[in-house]
């Protein structure tokens, strides 16, 4: 069995940690583009026209049935071929990160359309009507009333997606992305994988705490986003006044 040394673990840990920047880069970019695609798919799903609804559900089904690795390969090897000619040649020169972002945007486009639907349907219908009733436009009512509540409803899903993306992104080392996994793999390769086990330990020490921190962070954001769900803010006030009939001032 390979020798596991503290020095090597630290070496791989220190060597791979900076690559978190790349990890976060594709996570953030894919989340943004993916959510935009998801909104579009959501619109198509609710379209008046059958053909649009069909396209949307086809997209979601196909993407859901495809393993990340296969999608990654399809995008990486396929896009330049599909584009062909000069554009294809230009695409082949693009950094791997671009292909990774495209791949995950496609995935998030499918899953987020469902998240948007769930988040929106959890907001009572009367909320939008109440917004209109005080004279707001549809857009104003969406921004001020629906969106904050949707965001809160979607938060657990957003958190899960981010964590999933970070882990799935580890696959992208297969096409040469230098995220945390890719960087460690690269460093280990330079040493003929002689200290692979130390590298695995270092990677575990990066990914595991990161996941736990992110879980906490998203739970905290959810809490911070929803002052309106904290029941005990006014605990010190007279409690039973909630039930009492209030006598009017005048």
């Amino acid at each position, binding site marked *: *069995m*390979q020798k596991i040394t503290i020095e090597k673990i630290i070496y791989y840990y220190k060597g791979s940690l900076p690559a978190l920047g790349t990890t976060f880069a594709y996570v953030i970019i894919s989340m943004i583009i993916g959510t935009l695609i998801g909104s579009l798919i959501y619109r198509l799903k609710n379209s008046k026209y059958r053909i649009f609804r069909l396209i949307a559900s086809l997209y979601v*089904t*196909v993407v*859901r*049935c*495809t*393993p*990340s*690795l*296969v*999608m990654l*390969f*399809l995008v990486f*090897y*396929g896009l*330049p*071929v*599909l584009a*062909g000619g000069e554009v*294809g040649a230009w695409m082949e020169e693009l950094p791997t990160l671009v292909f990774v972002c495209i791949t995950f945007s496609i995935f998030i486009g499918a899953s987020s359309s469902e998240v948007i639907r769930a988040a929106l349907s959890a907001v009572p219908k009367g909320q939008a009507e109440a917004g209109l009733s005080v004279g707001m436009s549809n857009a104003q009512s969406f921004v001020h009333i629906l969106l904050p509540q949707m965001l809160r409803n979607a938060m657990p899903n957003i958190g899960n997606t981010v964590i999933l993306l*970070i*882990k*799935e*992104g*580890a*696959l992208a*080392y297969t096409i040469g992305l230098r995220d945390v*996994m890719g960087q460690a793999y690269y460093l280990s390769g330079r040493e003929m994988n002689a200290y*692979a*086990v130390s590298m*695995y330990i270092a*990677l*575990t020490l990066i*990914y*595991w*705490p*990161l*996941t*736990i921190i992110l879980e906490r962070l998203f739970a905290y954001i959810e809490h911070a986003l929803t002052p309106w769900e904290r029941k005990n803010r006014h605990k010190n006030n007279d409690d039973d006044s909630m039930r009492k009939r209030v006598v009017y001032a005048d």
Partner: protein
Amino acid sequence: MQIDYEFIRRALPDIARYIPVTLKLVVVSFLISFPIGALFAWINYKKVKGLSQVVKAYMSLIRGTPVVLQIYVIYNVTPYILASIFEKMGSEINVYRLDTTWYAYLALSLSSTVTIAEALRAGLETVNKGQFEAGLSVGLSAKQALWHIVFPQALTTAMPVIGNVTVELTKATSLAFIMAVTEITGRAKIIGGSVLRYFEAYICVFILYILIIAVLEQLLKLLERKISVYRTGKHNYMSVKAI
């Protein structure tokens, strides 16, 4: 470069020959992870002292690390551990000769074990306590009440998630080539690499996965309907169009 349709036409049946390998990976990994997941669910549900902390730590670790990393660890580290164990026992078994597929089963079942455990525990918690007590009241033993009343209901609640696990597991088999198992993705990599037609080879894999999972989802739907018959009812008068 142009898409080589002729290549796709020839490669598709060739890659499709490896569908049984993929299916076997799914089935065996599921058969490993279901009982273990159920056990973990029970341990967490009952909050068994000591054990439940261990299970929770394991679940957190698996949830917190990429599947590829888990695969590498299982594939590269377990043989050493097994070898040293066998050596101490004085056994003649040479682990390095062991079929690598076994490592794949093990590695792939890690994640599904966790998801199944989570789903079943949540399922157990939704079963009304009165159901168990009603079982006792008609003279069933605690074990019988659990087996005949509580578990089936918990399973029904967990069924959608378990269906999902199966789909995820199917997709995860695409990683088995890392462990030198030639299933459909692995085969595509080989024949795609031989003539540098990766894209076409992966299109074949893409098509095959969609087919496999589409069939799988239909089967799961049937199974789910069968299992949850007590909820939806056989004689569904609600579905008769209201006048």
